[in-house]
């Protein structure tokens, strides 16, 4: 009886998503007559672009995950001052606006970065260029190594303490312990971690756009953008977008097939140190990896803060254009996060009501629909929307609305993932009680859900907020002078090598996203505790 009523909101949202996505999709199909993928294959340039997409994702995954293994291993058995902070920073790289990270990397490894200046002091020249494959790999490792290390740390920490004691007791040495005890437990997690990182690198847009440079290091994602923006070749753009969609869908299916995802919990490190046979060489080994990881992650972020306070600061913050970008970014981030949160909650209300009456399959399907964006990159959706609306209206005046919609869709999977379990538990506990008390609708949500699981709700909101704040892929096609967001503005500054102004904007973007994220969480969680 109530379940019918509860099915409605989720179904409406699901309908909207379907309409939105299929509208975009059919626009793509309409623009690529015959849907002839052979055209892509026969063109050496697109063949190269496809191969390069795989090549760079493969190398990025190999480096990120390969190097994350010893880092996670070292972290799992050492406790030291600042470990908690380091792990928080590790978590931050995933939500960090990509271009801020890219700026930090440029400030260190760029042509006029810290290393180049240091070498210049001794009359040496930088032996590598950050533009091209080097830079793409560096940035992908910067973003994904900490993420992978955190994911791999979880199984290592979940090893029972007796296993460690036994290893000590039986005298299983480092290498043997790794081979016999730790590796088998990492191995179960590896396909999932590799799959995730591969997917993130494969669809990476802002990094490749900012650091890729010439045709040699172009990915499919970037080729879609260039076909439309540089060549006005809508047909190739649509075809490439479909191509990207097929590849991502296939990859997603493969990953799903070969990996058992382990729930990502924000584990705090257990206070009890694990016993293991320590030695000087083991200490050096661990120190090497932990400091190497810290040296990868911390300096770029520090450079963003240090470089941000430069002579251009006043010039930038007194520019109306800058404030219009700030305003647009906040508007996009707040609206997208709200829409994603509301959409996610409505879908979950429906899916959990189905779960409670045993319709697991149906519930899985509607939650999967919410995560559809994972196989259709934001740029593909916005390309479709772009082609769909181009002839109907002035796209550039609707830019922000479209960006909000696409960003909300991009944040939806995170909302659903964060809230699915808490929402279901609440319903299992209180559904009968609520209906016996006649509580329903918004007042029930406020009194029960909001009061009880406010922490994950706020967390879902702030994740969506930060992701939308830093996203470049949706705005890239539509951005114009009056609808510039901070990431787009930063991209333009980076593109025209105005490093000082870019530094200021990076700092602002970092502050607005990460600091605001921390602030929201702190205030809301604190309030919750007080009540």
């Amino acid at each position, binding site marked *: 009886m109530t379940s019918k009523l509860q099915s409605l909101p989720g179904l409406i949202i699901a309908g909207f998503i379907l309409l939105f996505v299929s509208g975009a999709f059919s626009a793509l199909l309409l623009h690529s007559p015959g849907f002839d993928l052979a055209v892509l294959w026969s063109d050496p340039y697109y063949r190269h672009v496809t191969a*390069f997409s795989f090549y760079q994702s493969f190398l990025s995954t190999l480096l990120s995950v390969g190097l994350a293994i010893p880092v996670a291993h070292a972290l799992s058995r050492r406790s030291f001052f600042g470990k908690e902070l380091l792990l928080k920073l590790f978590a931050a790289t995933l939500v960090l606006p990509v271009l801020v990270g890219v700026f930090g990397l440029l400030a260190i490894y760029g042509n006029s970065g810290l290393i180049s200046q240091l070498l210049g002091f001794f009359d040496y020249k930088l032996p590598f260029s950050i533009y091209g494959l080097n830079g793409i790999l560096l940035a992908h490792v910067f973003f994904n190594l900490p993420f992978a290390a955190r994911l791999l740390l979880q199984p290592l920490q979940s090893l029972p303490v007796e296993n460690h004691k036994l290893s000590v007791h039986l005298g299983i040495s480092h290498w043997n312990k790794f081979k016999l005890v730790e590796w088998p437990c990492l191995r179960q997690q590896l396909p999932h971690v590799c799959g995730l990182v591969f997917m993130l690198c494969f669809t990476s847009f802002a990094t490749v756009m900012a650091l890729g440079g010439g045709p040699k290091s172009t990915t499919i994602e970037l080729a879609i953008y260039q076909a439309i*923006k540089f060549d006005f070749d809508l047909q190739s753009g649509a075809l490439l977008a479909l191509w990207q969609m097929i590849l991502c869908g296939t990859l997603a299916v493969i990953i799903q097939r070969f990996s058992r995802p382990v729930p990502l919990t924000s584990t705090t490190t257990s206070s009890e140190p694990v016993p293991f046979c320590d030695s000087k060489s083991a200490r050096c080994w661990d120190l090497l990896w932990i400091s190497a990881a810290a040296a990868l992650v911390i300096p770029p972020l520090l450079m963003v803060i240090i470089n941000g306070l430069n002579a251009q600061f006043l010039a930038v913050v007194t520019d109306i254009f800058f404030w219009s970008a700030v305003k647009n970014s906040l*508007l996009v981030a707040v609206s997208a996060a*709200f829409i994603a949160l509301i959409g996610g909650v409505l879908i979950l209300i429906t899916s959990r009501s189905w779960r409670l009456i045993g319709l697991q399959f149906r519930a899985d399907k509607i939650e999967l629909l919410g995560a559809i964006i994972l196989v259709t990159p934001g740029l593909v959706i916005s390309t479709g929307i772009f082609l769909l609306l181009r002839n109907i209206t*002035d796209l550039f005046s609707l830019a922000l*609305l479209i960006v909000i919609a696409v960003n909300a869709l991009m944040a939806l999977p995170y909302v659903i993932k964060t809230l699915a379990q808490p929402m279901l538990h609440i319903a299992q506990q209180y559904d009968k009680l609520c209906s016996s008390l006649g509580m329903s609708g918004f007042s029930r949500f406020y009194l029960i859900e909001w009061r009880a699981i406010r922490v994950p709700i706020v967390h879902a909101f702030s994740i969506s907020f930060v992701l939308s704040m830093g996203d470049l892929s949706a705005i890239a096609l539509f951005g114009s002078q009056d609808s510039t967001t901070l990431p787009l503005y930063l991209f333009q500054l980076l593109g025209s090598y105005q490093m000082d102004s870019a530094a200021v904007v990076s700092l602002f973007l970092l502050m607005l996203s990460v600091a605001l994220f921390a602030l929201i969480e702190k205030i809301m969680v604190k309030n919750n505790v007080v009540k």
Partner: protein
Amino acid sequence: MKKILPLLAFSTLVSMPAAADKLVVYTYDSFASEWGPGPKIKKAFEQECACELEFVALDDGVSILNRLRLEGKNSKADVLLGLDNNLMAEAAKTGLLTEHKVDTADIRLPGGWSDNTFVPFDFGYFSFVYNKDTLLNPPKSLKELVEKQDDIKVIYQDPRTSTPGQGLMLWMKWVYADQADQAWKQLAKKTVTVTKGWSEAYNMFLKGEADMVLSYTTSPAYHIIAEQNNQYISADFSEGHYTQVEVAAKVKSSTNEKLADQFMDFIISDQFQSAIPTGNWMYPVTDVPLPKGFKQLTVPSKSFSFTAEQVETNRKTWIREWQSSLIY
């Protein structure tokens, strides 16, 4: 939900169409920037028309056309300023431009002018610029630059977004014809980076990131006149230099046709033209007097260009040839 609705409404308000007495001109960034001719021209025209002139600055010339094509019939632009002779046929083919009513009799261009859609506003010759104090032995021809002197580092612009970049592509095609793909590969070894627009490339060159940059024979005039600096020289290539005529055109969907016509007339006025040599650092298209520093410049002994139709037919193929030869 209640909280979002006003926000959404607000965002549509922000992007409302421009008021009627505002003329929107799409141009490239170096034209509109404070050190370009833009501000001077804006001031002069606004006095004449009692209206507002808004420059929308895009990466470079080709981006102007790309932007117009993306916006289609809903474009906010009234006038495009910064396409060139090579893009004319392709731009006209979009059907988004309309004929001008300007009397072009006063225009003094090497090959004369007769076009009903496009009005030229300046011209020049593409060329590689270098610092004579640091590059002691500059190449004497395009072939020498491409094939010899492996220690030279160059920066040029993307032919898909920039008119100088497209100019180099045509120049290479003119000199190398069928061997252009090989030549591109050779040039790639000397290329520091390919930028989206002219101003990034030129800034990087001035910061010392490369020995030569693709620009114009007239670029040294800026250093001579504005900086009293004679270091920067345009390399004279024996094959001759590719000619560029920069043009403006009216957008068909413009709702400000009167103002647009007025602006098109203004382009060949003395006020506009005299701002060109020391603003855009190009040759004016009418008989306005040239500043002294321009006499120092090397004028190419030979110059050439494809017809706009030739470019239109082959542009896509030639761009793909450039792209494909850079991927290996």
